[in-house]
């Protein structure tokens, strides 16, 4: 069995090559779409087999290395291309290939008729390939290959509709922001290689046990890694690219910018959890950044009118929740939220895509309203997603979010817990604002030109499957007071080394029940408030005033970066070129040339061609020599 695991990544790669090289020639959507989806489905099947294989093994030996080839070796640098199959990577692979497959199927309907159909599927397959390398890589460099690879696919797919300026701008912004994060990732690799002499995860962990290393080293390494995570997972300060990334087609937003790629930062912390656990400072930074991001993004989401931007800020906010979990050492809880979020956020994005599709590419909720009768399946599945994200029991979002809240509380971070609870309240509020404005009230669009319609089955069936998963997905992670937490049990062997370092927090059952009641109440009140305010569709804004405009303008972070980074950088480049290169260096070069040229021009005047002049020079020369001899 193990010898076939490499097919998990090879199949999507084959799909990419096929569609990339020949897709444009065939111009056959059926072949392209089928190959694109089936290759991902094939990886999903093999991943399931891999899952069954490792669950059949004893709990403490569920780690399999699949060696491929020797990638890079020189001197002390020896990096293999090898896959690490363990509960963590298998969980991630199941999400990537499973949700990925559903989104591919959906995209067959969504992208129908687009002239870049083959290109789209080629890039999507390439993305799956890169993402699987990211989660399966058994060393940091292979992970980085996937890390940059998904960044590339994100760039290509954000800029998919390349004949518009804003898509190109958004794609570049995403790539550049990610590159800033990757700068941190690369430096972290250098530090790790210096400290451990290897980039292989298992060797790093075994070295840890035999040597003592200063805490400050871990702090440096993990903070640099976290810089990488803030880029990829859109956290403060590098979060501004994600909302712009919505310029890409909606299946891309669902797959890359909600379900999978943006959670790579969370996965990376999970994979290197030991290193993070050894640096309390870094853990606190992760917690603080996650908390701040979750809150800030949720407040922005309230004031947005673009259906996809609301969901994008929602994603940023939910990622913040995941980082909060990581920050208190609740690694399996974080991955649990990655899983449930993949279900319900992919669902909501695809449902939003269905709305946009039915509304002839309208994305502004201010120009929607009353769609619930026109598109029933979309409405019901979207509503389901909204209920799930709000944290209503017994649906998946409730279990994972509530567990994060409980872990925050019991680790003693009461302020963070408080902010997280408020954020959960805001989440339900903005998401039901979205639902109300889109599906309830009177139509606010031009009914003579726009005729909303339900999407074809190829799009609604994935929606239904995802809705079912969002509803039942939570049962893999029941709270301890209710039953066994399957996913935690499954993942924990991976985190044992890290968890042995972090102090364990005692969970008080009665307090936990209180917390659950509090969070459910918060969600319920919030939904009620939101629906009451926006249901009629007469009111679009929750409130007004200066602060609201500030939220509408997304805290003007883009403008801030423009002023303090982009403009000075452009100024510097201009100065470097126009002043330093042209005037200073070339000035010196040309000046030297000019000096000799002028010298030549002056001295040339001595060459008059008149014999008498030369005679005078000769006599002067002889006199000079004589004078020298006499005076010596």
């Amino acid at each position, binding site marked *: 069995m193990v010898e076939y695991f490499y097919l998990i990544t090879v199949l999507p790669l084959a799909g990419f090559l096929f569609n990339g090289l020949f897709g444009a020639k065939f111009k056959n959507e059926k072949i392209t779409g089928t190959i694109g989806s089936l290759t991902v489905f094939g990886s999903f099947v093999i991943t399931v087999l891999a899952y069954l294989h490792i669950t059949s093994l004893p709990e403490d030996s569920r780690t399999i290395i699949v060696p491929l080839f020797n990638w890079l070796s020189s001197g002390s640098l020896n990096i293999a291309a090898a896959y690490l199959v363990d509960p963590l990577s298998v969980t991630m692979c199941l999400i990537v290939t499973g949700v990925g497959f559903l989104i591919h199927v959906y995209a067959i309907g969504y992208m129908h008729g687009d002239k870049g159909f083959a290109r789209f599927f080629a890039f999507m397959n390439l993305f799956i390939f890169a993402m699987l390398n990211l989660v399966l890589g058994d060393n940091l460099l292979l992970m980085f290959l996937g890390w940059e690879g998904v960044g590339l696919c994100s760039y290509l797919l954000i800029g998919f509709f390349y004949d518009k300026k804003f898509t190109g701008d958004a794609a*570049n912004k995403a790539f*550049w922001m990610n590159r800033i994060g990757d*700068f941190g990732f690369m430096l972290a690799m250098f530090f790790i290689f210096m400290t451990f002499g290897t980039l292989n995860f298992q060797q790093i962990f075994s070295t840890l046990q035999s040597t003592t290393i200063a805490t400050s080293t871990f702090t440096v390494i993990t903070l640099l890694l976290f810089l990488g995570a803030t880029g990829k997972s859109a956290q403060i300060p590098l979060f501004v690219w994600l909302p712009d990334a919505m310029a890409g087609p909606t299946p891309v937003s669902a797959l890359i910018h909600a379900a999978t790629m943006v959670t790579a930062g969370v996965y990376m912390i999970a994979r290197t959890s030991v290193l993070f656990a050894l640096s309390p400072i870094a853990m606190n930074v992760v917690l603080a950044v996650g908390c701040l991001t979750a809150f800030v993004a949720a407040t922005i989401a309230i004031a947005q009118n673009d259906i996809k931007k609301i969901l994008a800020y929602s994603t940023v906010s939910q990622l913040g929740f995941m980082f909060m979990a990581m920050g208190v050492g609740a690694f399996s809880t974080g991955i649990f939220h990655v899983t449930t979020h993949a279900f319900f956020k992919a669902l909501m994005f695809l449902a939003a895509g269905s709305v946009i599709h039915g509304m002839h590419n309208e994305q502004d909720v201010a120009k929607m309203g009353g769609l619930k009768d026109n598109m029933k399946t979309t409405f019901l599945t979207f509503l389901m997603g909204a209920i799930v994200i709000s944290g209503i029991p017994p649906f998946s979002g409730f279990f994972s979010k509530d567990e994060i809240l409980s872990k925050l509380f019991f680790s003693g971070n009461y302020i963070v817990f408080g902010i997280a609870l408020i954020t959960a309240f805001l989440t339900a509020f903005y998401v039901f604002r979205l639902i109300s404005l889109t599906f309830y009230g009177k139509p606010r669009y031009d009914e003579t030109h726009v005729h909303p319609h339900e999407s074809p089955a190829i799009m609604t069936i994935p929606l239904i499957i995802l809705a079912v998963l969002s509803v039942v997905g939570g049962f893999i992670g029941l709270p301890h007071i209710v039953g066994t937490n399957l996913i935690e049990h499954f993942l924990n062997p991976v985190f044992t080394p890290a968890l042995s370092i972090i102090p364990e927090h005692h969970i008080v059952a009665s307090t936990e029940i209180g917390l659950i009641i509090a969070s459910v109440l918060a969600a319920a009140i919030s939904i009620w408030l939101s629906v009451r305010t926006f249901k009629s569709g007469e009111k679009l804004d929750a409130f007004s005033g200066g602060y609201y405009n500030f939220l509408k303008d997304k805290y003007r972070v883009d403008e801030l970066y423009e002023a303090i980074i982009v403009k000075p950088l452009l100024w510097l480049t201009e100065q470097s070129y126009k002043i*330093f290169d042209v005037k200073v260096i070339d000035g010196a070069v040309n000046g030297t040339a000019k000096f000799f040229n002028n010298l030549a021009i002056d001295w040339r005047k001595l060459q008059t061609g008149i014999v008498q002049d030369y005679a005078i020079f000769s006599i002067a020369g002889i006199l000079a020599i004589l004078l020298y001899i006499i005076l010596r």
Partner: protein
Amino acid sequence: MVNNILTVLIFSPIVLSIPVLFFRDKEKLIKIYSFIVSAAVFGFSLYVLSLFNSANADFQFVERYQWVKDFNIFYLLGIDGISLLLVLLTAFIFPVTILGVWGSVATRVKEFYFLLLLLEGALLGVFLSLDLILFYVFWELILIPMYFIIGFWGGKNKYYANLKFFLYTMFGSLLMLVAIIWLSNYVTPQLGKFTTDYLELRKVSPYTPQTIQLWLFIFFGLSFVIKVPMFPFHTWLPDAHTEAPTAGSIILAAVLLKMGTYGIIRFSMELFPIMFIKYAWLLAVFGVIGIIYGALVCIAQKDVKKLVAYSSVSHMGFILLGLAALNVEAMQGALIQMVNHGLSTGALFMFVGFLYDRRYTREIADYGGILKVVPIFGSLLLVICLSSIGLPGLNGFIGEFMILIGSFNSALLNNHTYTILGTTGVVLSAVYLLWMYQRVLLGPLDKDINKSIPDLNLRETVASALIIIFIVWIGVYPNTFLSKSEASMKKVIENVETAKRNLLRIP
């Protein structure tokens, strides 16, 4: 033939260039003939590769003939793992260039291809010479075809650019000639004879007094860093690159610049190891300045060709940093980066040439949105840009990563600041290349004149695909290439370390 295999390699393009002059004006024949000759040379270089023993760190296929008897100057050739990769790069780039630029030279066709083949022979000579005078002869021989290529087929500002290129490099190489004579003369007592045999000189040269060594090191070094070009001696490059015809720019970027970095490894390091150890930090400082400064200047460019030219300054900065680190990882990275830069920057110039031949402008602002009409051009150019940006899985990343991780852990530099600053180049290269890509290819196709730009034809596609094969190959399985030079590179480092140890023992 095995005995004179290197001579055959160097002189086949030179000798076979002569018939071109008798082809009169049969342009097509000239091109096909030149392509076949250069392809055959590449084939022959592969034959050399097949005979090469990569476990042997020493020079192989050494040929030695007395040249100037009284001064013990030899016609001395040899190849090791380091020169092997550069020879292969040279032999590969020429046929690809000829294929790629097929129609872009319209006047004095036979002279152009004659000079091109002559240039190829001279370049191979530079990488294979083991006698300093012979090396110097080939080094200077490069200037002649290059001067005419820029002078005859160059752009508007070619006279200024050509003079600048010529004087700049001439200034450096004259200092090198002085140093060669000085060194050979100085060590005559130790060797018992005057000789310019590199294999002899490197035994005694490290032990010359440091005051003299410093001057020799500076003279050799200046000549090399001008060629690289290292900041602040780089201003000849954008002018020469921009004015040269496409083929000239490709060869200049892909191979000529490597003469400088090759010279540093072969001569500066091995002849003057103690000076190298003392001043490696300076090389690293200027390398890092080059990385950042070159990238910043790139962002400000409005001319595509100039942008690519300045990107060379940035990329060559990485190589200098790698050499200054003096450990296997970084130096192997620097060597593979020389090959990478040759492939990706060579390809970038080729693509600028494709564009120029279609629209006769290099201004970025004259384009925009042309991906719609030239999808093949756009897709292939993206791969090449990504290779230059250093995307993992493609060649550029391997070189940059090895250089950076090596210099980070370098005992010689012993300072992380170089690497940390150098790594910002990774961010900046994405900025200038993707921004250029966006402004040229993406966005609305709003200029009518651009709507009729034809896409790449089969010949051009094949030429670019050949380069891309190696871009991917080195990115996915660099060991094919790294293993060839590993032994020789270790030997160079070992020689430097040995000299250092011996010198420390002598008070």
